[in-house]
């Protein structure tokens, strides 16, 4: 089988670009990151300029310098890490939960999509509940999940991962289902004409075709799982994590406004890192397919 690939589905991998000189690749990297850097610099300038132009007080919008300064103050009354290090620890704590929820929710979403594709009856019966599950605000669901699992004796990290998974599985189910159905009728006909079994159609046609859809939904799911992980920290009575940072910083905002911005930075750091990881995985796995319009 493997020795005789189906011609119509074979994709041409473009030859690797002619060996570029190190200087050229560096220049390309700079050119790629230029827009990102440009946006950041523009934002930072707009931040300080609007403070100057509209006379926004430090209470409402602290100076960037003040935020950086706060990052280097010692925590826990002068005995702990600097806030920057503590921020990274909190971000790591939330990241672990988000990753756990992402994997759990991703697998659940994948499984549901495959199930729904194979059994349309099941889809008609269950899909309304899947959609309904997402219309209930996560703020209402999270305490229920944490209390419910807590009574069953589950540790709090399990409850937090469950909440993150709850937000993750939905986009994956929808995206994956769409992807599995994206195979063109022509390709399906061709597969059938080769007398391919349903399993072969699934593994060789439907699944590869669905990967771009899968990764699009995984990117949505990546940010959703971070939100789930942050939201779940509050009912779980966590001591660490981005959610706790935000809560504590918000409560003491008026005495120390920059701290809240550090907490928000921690939240976006987790989200961006996570998204970046999924995007990287996509490039490694389906990158070549994409470029061929697969």
């Amino acid at each position, binding site marked *: 089988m493997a020795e005789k690939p189906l011609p119509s589905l074979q994709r041409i991998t473009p030859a690797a670009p002619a060996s570029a000189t190190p200087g050229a690749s560096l220049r390309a990297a700079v050119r790629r990151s230029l827009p990102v850097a440009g946006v950041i610099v523009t934002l930072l300038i707009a931040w300080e300029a609007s403070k100057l132009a509209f006379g926004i007080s430090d209470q409402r919008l602290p100076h960037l310098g003040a935020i950086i300064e706060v990052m280097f103050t010692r925590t826990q009354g002068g005995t702990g890490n600097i806030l920057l290090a503590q921020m990274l620890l909190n971000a790591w704590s939330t990241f672990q939960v988000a990753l756990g929820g992402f994997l759990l929710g991703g697998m659940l979403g994948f499984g549901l999509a495959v199930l729904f594709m194979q059994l349309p009856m099941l889809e008609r019966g269950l899909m309304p509940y899947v959609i309904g599950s997402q219309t209930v605000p996560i703020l209402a669901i999270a305490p229920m999940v944490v*209390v419910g699992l807590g009574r069953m004796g589950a540790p709090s990290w399990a409850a937090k991962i469950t909440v993150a998974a709850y937000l993750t599985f939905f986009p994956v189910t929808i995206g994956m289902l769409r992807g599995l159905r994206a195979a063109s009728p022509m390709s399906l006909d061709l597969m059938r004409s080769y007398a391919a079994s349903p399993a072969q159609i699934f593994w060789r046609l439907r699944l590869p075709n669905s990967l771009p859809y899968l990764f699009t939904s995984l990117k949505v799911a990546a940010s959703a799982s971070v939100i789930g992980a942050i939201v779940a920290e509050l009912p779980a*009575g966590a001591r660490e994590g981005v959610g706790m940072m935000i809560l504590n910083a918000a409560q*003491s905002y008026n005495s120390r406004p920059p701290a809240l911005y550090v907490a928000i930075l921690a939240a976006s750091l987790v989200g961006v890192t996570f998204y970046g990881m999924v995007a990287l995985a996509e490039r490694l796995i389906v990158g070549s397919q994409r470029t061929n319009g697969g």
Partner: protein
Amino acid sequence: MQMRKFFGLFAALVMISSALAACGGAPAAKPPTAPAATVPVATAAKAPTEAVATEAAEVTQTGATEGPEGTPAPVATAAVTAAATAAVTPVAAGAADKVTLQLKWVVQAQFAGYFAALEQGYYKAENLDVTIQPGSPDIVPEQVVAGGQAQFGIDWMASLLATRETGAPLVNIAQVYTRAGMRTLSWKTSNITSPADLKGKKVAVWFGGNEYDLLATLNKYKLDKTTDLTLVTQPFDMNMFLNKEVDAAAAMTYNELYQVLSAGHKIDELNIIDYNVESTAMPEDGIFVNGEWLKDAKNKDIAARFLRASFKGWAYCRDNADACVGYVLKQDSSGVMTKEAQKWQMDEVNKLIWGDPINPKTKIGYLTPELFTFAADTALKFGVIKQPASPDAYTHEIWDLATK
């Protein structure tokens, strides 16, 4: 070609799965190692041998002084024996009674006394292995205690009475804060010198159980909460008040008042309505347990030991505010709390327990029947509860056991 791609996908899945395994492992391993979940263990591990010995000596002393005053001899002996064993082999601490305390809010100086009791070994001296579980906006301590995930909870009386009405037999065993930290702040420019001046004003208040001081006060001044003034929901921060979007706002002395002052304002700029002065202050932080749990004589003893050690912790914080602030900050994994804010909080909280000025002779934790009656009547009047509260909602029995 296809196969290669699937090997790639498979490899990625394996990588992700192993990451999951690693992550699943890390949080799973957390309870025993993280500072969060295992305060008692960490303390036990850190306590140098001399400290344990000192504690044992302290207990012996306590036992000796308490003996003549009529403490049941077996209890005292048991505690002393346990502590003595602990001094020889720290492993014996496993025999201690394991209990959990559910706080009303995140770790802050509002709960310093319990952390002091933990850090100073007062709980251990009473042969208790106490885990302190922080709260959050989404945690209802009553729910946690009623569900059996904690034996002790801290919350305000109105909330306790409301939960009791749903059938959970919760009982207040000590009213730690006998004075209310609740205030309503207004700018001098709004000219609110008495609650009567709230008429026609826009007033921010925390709803969801923290509004009854204000409602009772409005009632006292014959102001109608819907027609005579505008009540708006207040968020956790004081921005609404600082931006002068409202005339008056609720504030706890130990928290929001500090927020306003540290945002660059002077206390002279404010008029403050003190509900203690108005005699409309609802009881705030009190310790409660499940009444069913308390029926067991063994648990009564545990509860009494818990109160005794907690009161000792609060007494320690009264005399060593700075050390207690250190204990609180040590728990702050978020890293955003400041020493200054927690010191302010510690000083204000001490006043709520011991009086202003501080009076060490205060009967800490004693809920006067009058205060309970006021709370129960107010709760009934403003619809917190539908039926008059039963006096079973509190007991002095444990307090008596703990303080004699």
